[in-house]
């Protein structure tokens, strides 16, 4: 600190400027802000789901044991992909690029598997008669709310897989840094976290198990 600054600030530390006010680079801050905003979007759709469910006297509970088992496996797959994501970030930070890319690949695989299981689940329900506007079990709003909410999440997973793919390729070619891997990890964990709300609120609360 120069004498002049001491004179002006009375010796107190002043803001030094630059990229990292709280040790967060702009890109990472941007991702956090996106997550804040996106969680509000998911919150609004979840609110919609809850509101319509409470307002409907005949909300269907169509998920049989097989569905619940399927959703449990999906949850397990997605949670595991978060673990591999952590390993990818860890490896990236340690400079082990090949290992990091392998872990990213495992994460993507988890995402794709999740999507496949999810689409299988959708097709099963569609086969049983579930449509956007109606279904054989009760309030027609169920299909609307279910497909919107899970569809929004599935879109996020799919975009996440593409995003991870771009990051993995870029990281291997040296275009991206380990920070970029970490930022993509933030997104992935967020998408994972959202599922942890959807699984109990949509599946477990609408289970039909005798």
């Amino acid at each position: 600190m120069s004498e002049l600054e001491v004179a002006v600030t009375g010796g107190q530390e002043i803001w030094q400027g630059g990229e990292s006010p709280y040790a967060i680079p702009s890109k990472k801050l941007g991702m956090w802000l996106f997550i804040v905003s996106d969680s509000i979007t998911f919150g609004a759709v979840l609110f919609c789901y809850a509101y319509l469910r409470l307002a409907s006297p005949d909300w269907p509970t169509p998920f049989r044991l097989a569905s619940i088992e399927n959703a449990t496996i999906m949850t397990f797959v997605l949670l595991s992909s978060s673990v591999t994501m952590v390993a990818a970030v860890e490896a990236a930070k340690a400079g082990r690029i090949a290992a990091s890319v392998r872990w990213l690949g495992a994460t993507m695989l988890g995402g794709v598997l999740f999507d496949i299981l999810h689409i299988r689940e959708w097709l099963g329900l569609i086969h049983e008669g579930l449509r956007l506007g109606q279904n054989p079990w009760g309030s027609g709003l169920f299909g609307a709310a279910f497909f919107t909410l899970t569809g929004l999440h599935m879109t996020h997973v799919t975009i996440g897989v593409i995003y991870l793919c771009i990051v993995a390729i870029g990281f291997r070619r040296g275009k991206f840094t380990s920070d970029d891997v970490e930022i993509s990890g933030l997104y992935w964990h967020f998408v994972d976290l959202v599922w942890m709300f959807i699984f109990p609120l949509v599946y477990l609360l609408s289970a039909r198990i005798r």
Partner: protein
Amino acid sequence: MHDTSKQTAEHHHSPPQGFLWTHVFSLDHKVIGKQYYFLSLAAVLIGMILSWLVRFHLAWASVAIPGLQHLSQVGAPGGIITPEYYLSLLTLHGTLMVFFVLTTAPQAGFGNYFLPIQIGAEDMAFPRLNMLSFWVTFVGFVVLVSTLFVSDGPPISGWTAYAPLSAIGSDAGPGLGTGQVLWVISIGIFCIGSLLGALNFIATTLDLRAKGMTLARMPYTTWAWFITAVLGLLAFAVLLPACVLLALDHLGGTSFFIPGGLVVSDKLQPHSGGSTLLWQHMFWFFGHPEVYIAIIPGLGITSHILTATARKDLLGGTRVLVGCMVSIAFLSFMVWGHHMFISGMNPFSSLVFSVPTLIITIPASIVTLNWIGTVFGARLRLHTAGLFAIGFISVFVTGGLSGFFLAQPSLDIYLHATYFVVGHFHMVMGVAAIFGMFAGTYFWFPKMFGRMMSEPLGKLHFWVTFIGVYCIFMPMHYLGLAGNVRRYSAFVDDYLAPLIPVHKFITISAFVTGAAQLLFLFNLFWSMYRGKKAEENPWQATTLEWTIPSPPPFDNFGGRHPVVYRGPYEFGVEGTPDDFVMQDSPEQPAKS
């Protein structure tokens, strides 16, 4: 000391070449700011013409408007507006004004241009995202205006698009098919643009401040843009899914917002189970913060300009002003239900929403008292920008006062959906925010275009506008108390007929005030090419935007890294050659 070279390394981009890259697809925040500004200008012109049509019809319902039949043969046969087309024009007026003017110009326009400069940065944190935000918003604008040219015109459901009217489709009235779908798409697109912009603003403010620019040293405008960006990031995130759900009701056969057993135009609607209140909840959860998204930049601009006008810092300073703006922003998320007092919501929730609404008047009053206290006893330099800043205080108070009445459920049952509400929100949201934009334009024009605007024309513009808006919107409060309901296209009922002369007075005032805006437009474009050359700091203001040439070079500070040594508004400092000290001036002023 930190090395500041890292700061610029990632964001540095060299000046582009060619017209397309310098003026159209530019990454420069200054060009993008101007693009937003001119987009708003186009929107406000269309919006104003629509309001003239609407006002003309209210005063002289049976008189033809020559040429209007060419715009819509069905909507205005022989130039006479049908009741449905009246609502279409009204919807487009409201939507354009709220989204593409009040939300766009003060925040995205001025904010883009001046936020990076005021914090000493050379651009926004994400220049590419910034360009994307603008072009996304532009597409939204084009889609919205295109509703004028589709088969049955813009939707008739108002800017709030209340369900089920907005959700059923063309059975419910003109414009509710294609027009409404286009409306939903347009607003959805606008949400995306606003979300990206808000994210960029927050990251820029937190990350790119120059050395010495502590949060406490940020100018009031920077604070206002920052707080508004936080509001935008949270509020538009709810409107976006709401728009998607509404679009699904149209296109996907869902019934989120449509109750069962609804018979419209003698047809039983194939929907069941949805909730019209759900749309209102989602819309107003966005809609109320939106009101503050429109007005908080105005609070910032007014405070910023008032200091240069009164030659002293705001009474209470940064802490009080920012504290008030933050509390207003925080409370804005808890009051959305005050738009829904008569919607059929549980009456107890009305009370819950009424109390925080009334609490908002506390920070709003503190800000107002600070402004008045600042002006009190000051030797004012009344340039046009200062006049508009003081005018802002006047219309903000006038519009705010009627808010006291509307915030109380018992009174709102009577006043809801009357011209009292129209007068209230036009005054406090529309006119106040527009005054903020005018103040900003007159104040920053020299910096943006390197030339001065004409002061005599500006002052004439101010006085006609100032008196004009009172002539337009004050009588509306009276109309509302007399029971004049809004959204009627003509007043044929016994009790409304005697009020027509008042409507004629309002319409004539609207035309006169509108003519004054043409004066502003002339001043704006004439000064852009013919105005007196502007110096670096024409208003003797203290913040960083006045330390660089007018207009600023491509990277704002010409490769220099500004260092900030003091607060943003050091006016009236003794022992200095002038009465003020710039923010980046390292000299120690002599303490008296």
